[in-house]
């Protein structure tokens, strides 16, 4: 048991906790768009924590390279996937307006459809 192991264990636990919270948020949030937040956000940081934890345990350059690739692709693809789902949901009207304090997109889309 050395410092690497302790930090690694802390990172793994933090990552697991954040992923669990993301799952809880997925159930508890009221509509699709807020669920997208839970699905993409605490989960991104949770995954990064887990990758750091695993990297500290393995301490092998070829494995760290692989973990870096996982982190990079996660950071690049999560926003794109979230955007596509959110955009499709919004345009299909799968958005609960009663959860919105301000909605500046609906008037913009209506103006676009009139043109």
């Amino acid at each position, binding site marked *: 048991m050395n410092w690497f192991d302790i930090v690694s264990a802390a990172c793994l636990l933090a990552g697991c906790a954040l992923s669990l919270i993301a799952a809880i*948020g997925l159930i*508890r949030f009221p509509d699709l768009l807020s669920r997208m937040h839970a699905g993409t956000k605490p989960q*991104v940081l949770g995954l990064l924590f887990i990758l750091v934890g695993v990297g500290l345990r393995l301490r092998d350059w070829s494995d760290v390279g692989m973990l870096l690739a996982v982190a990079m692709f996660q*950071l*690049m693809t999560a926003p794109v996937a979230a955007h596509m789902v959110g955009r499709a949901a919004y345009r299909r009207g799968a958005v609960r307006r009663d959860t919105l304090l*301000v909605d*500046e997109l609906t008037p913009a*889309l209506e103006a676009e459809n009139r043109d």
Partner: protein
Amino acid sequence: MSTDTSNDLPGDVPSRRTGVQWPMLIGLTVVWVLLWGGLSVANVVSGLVVAVIVTLVFPLPPIVFGGRLRVRGLAVLIGRFVVELMVASVQVAGQALRLGRQPLNAVIEVDLRSHSDLYLTLTAELLSLVPGSLVVEVRRSTSTLFLHVLGVRNEADVEEARRRALLQEERVMRALASDEELAAYLSEGVGR
């Protein structure tokens, strides 16, 4: 083949076939070597072959990058991003665990001041990664983002979210834009 949407200007999209894109080839090769988990001549050569095939079969428009990297700006961009990622993850986690009524959300329009696909994309990616904001619609022609913001209580929170999005863009510009682009960008902010 076109990914153009109705609100974009026709003919504005750069052509997809423009010869060899070296940054793309090198990037794909690096990923290949990372995935094989070892640096060897055979890995690099086979990676290059695969990269050439991929770029020939799935051509993408080149990324127009006329700026320059500023080390200081880049450090600020990355540092602030990590801090925001941590803080906002805790906030969203708190909201997920909170008992009782969930706060309201908002969909806001943010008019970015830069007019470049690269900076627009980077700003949108970073905003989406930071918890609490999600890009639901992008207007390429006017550099406008529509953000879904989690947990707003009043108008002040809405304006705060808009301000944070513009600050994110400013950090991207200060990290990557050329002197002329940065000057044009900063002068455009005077009227607002």
